[in-house]
């Protein structure tokens, strides 16, 4: 087994994560259109974790001079500019091998983004877009592990199903690192704002977050709620229990959660990936 330091090096050497082939086709169609607006591109990017991560990485690059500052896709687009953005989108990579796991994960991510947005609104959190972005990229580490260690990660997915275990625990058993760690390494390496790094790192244990407890709690709850709806598949065979401290921090009632679930069902019914 590789040491954690070796794995960290390999994860951090990723310059981007690949996206799904259908997304790439749609990207190319979109940027070929003369009249495409920044907002249209923004809406599109906001539904793809690979593209969103790329945009955040770029806008937070030290070359622009405000690293770790921007966590909103729309703000990022205003600061990157359409020309650079188009260039960036044309260079987007797709998975070498089409994996069913990745499709499920993509849907899980979009769903978590929608759930986090609705939770943030209900909980009176001002930074709704930040919550949505955090939901979208919270499982960045699964994609990274899947890209760097396809055999081992595949084994985690398989055994989670067969042995009815959490994928998080299997990752630690088989590879020695979890997707939460792997994702936070990338987020930190790519100069994402600290809140996003923490939300990725602690979406399983939001009470460990230092500065972004509320954001981590939002993503933690969003992760559970989207699993309940059965939309997408993040690799876990069941819904995880919601951390009590996180629940208390968000100050939501049971009725709020019912409302959130109803709204979430509405929101995801329109988002079906076609493969």
């Amino acid at each position, binding site marked *: 087994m590789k040491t954690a330091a070796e794995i960290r090096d390999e994860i951090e050497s990723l310059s981007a994560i690949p996206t799904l082939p259908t997304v790439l086709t749609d990207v190319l169609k979109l940027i070929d259109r003369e009249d495409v607006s920044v907002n249209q591109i923004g809406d599109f990017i906001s539904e793809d974790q690979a593209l969103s991560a790329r945009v955040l990485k770029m806008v937070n690059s030290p070359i*622009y001079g405000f690293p770790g500052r921007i966590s909103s896709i729309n703000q990022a687009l205003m600061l990157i500019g359409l020309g650079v953005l188009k260039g960036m989108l044309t260079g987007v990579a797709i998975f070498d091998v089409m994996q069913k796991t990745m499709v499920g994960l993509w849907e899980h991510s979009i769903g978590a983004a929608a759930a986090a947005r609705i939770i943030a609104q209900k909980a009176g959190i001002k930074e709704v877009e930040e919550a949505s972005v955090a939901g979208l990229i919270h499982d960045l580490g699964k994609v990274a592990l899947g890209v760097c260690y396809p055999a081992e990660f595949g084994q985690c997915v398989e055994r989670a199903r067969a042995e009815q275990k959490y994928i998080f625990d299997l990752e630690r058993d088989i590879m020695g690192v979890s997707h939460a760690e792997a994702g936070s390494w990338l987020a930190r390496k790519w100069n994402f704002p600290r809140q996003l790094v923490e939300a990725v790192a602690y979406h399983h244990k939001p009470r460990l977050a230092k500065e972004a407890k509320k954001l981590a709690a939002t993503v933690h709850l969003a992760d559970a709620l989207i699993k309940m709806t059965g939309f997408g598949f993040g690799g876990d065979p069941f819904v995880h229990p919601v951390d009590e401290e996180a629940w208390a921090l968000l100050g939501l009632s049971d009725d709020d959660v019912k409302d959130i679930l109803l709204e979430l069902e509405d929101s995801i019914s329109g988002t079906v990936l076609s493969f």
Partner: protein
Amino acid sequence: METIVVFTGDRDLNAVITATISESLQGFRIKTFESRHGVLDLVYDSPPALVILGCYPDHREFVNVLREDPILSNLPIMMILPAGELVERWTDMPVDDYLRAPPDADELRMRVSLAIFRAHRVVETNPLTMLPGNTPIVKEVQARLERGAEFALAYADLDNFKPFNDKYGFTRGDEILRMSARLITNIVKHKAPKDCFIGHIGGDDFVFMIAPEKADAVCAEIISGFDRIIPTFYDSEDRESGFIISHDRAGNRMLFPMLSISIGVTINNGAFEHYGAISSAASEMKKYAKGFEGSVYRIDKREKGA
């Protein structure tokens, strides 16, 4: 007319260089020197486009004399090195380019025009934002006025920037300036790609020029973009409350609202003859815009006095 100074310390070499470059470079006056005496006078009197030095016994020392004065640090200098002379460390001889003596004619012509082109390209950019600074801004405005171009001149600056800097420090202040530069540049280039110009006067003062009919849309988008992005640069407690406690210019502690941007625009309809006039008209509009709370733009649509 710009000058090229040729001072190689060798009369024949001076003559060869002058003959070679005067053939291909129009619009430049070439001045040759045989002693360093007149060179310094000329350099300080009207900075030349390029200085060609070489083969002179103390040329290394002379380069350093020129470079020592920060005001001359961007003066383009080309060195003609005697055959066989090696330069181990360029810090000892801070020139921009060199050629071997005797120089090949084509090589000399190309290097000289490249050196001048390069100097024009890098002329005075603001180190923080890499946008053109004061001199190129004035040049660009003047050039547009001289060719009678129709354009809108906009001055933008930030409101409450000083108290922000006092509270959060210069590093965060610089982040704001880079972000603002980026935002203005993207919106101007996207909305009005034709004949646009964006410059950074210094501090929190920016300038841009666009086609008059685009002014409204560009300013409106800059303002809304700025207001959307700016809370991100505050700590969460200040973002929640919507203001900061800091000091005004007199040192009084008071509440300040979030940073905003004010833009004043004037349109050249042929009434302005020189930089000073159009610049003060735009400044006046900006001052007027700053009188309103929050991010605001004001376009001067008054008819200019006939």
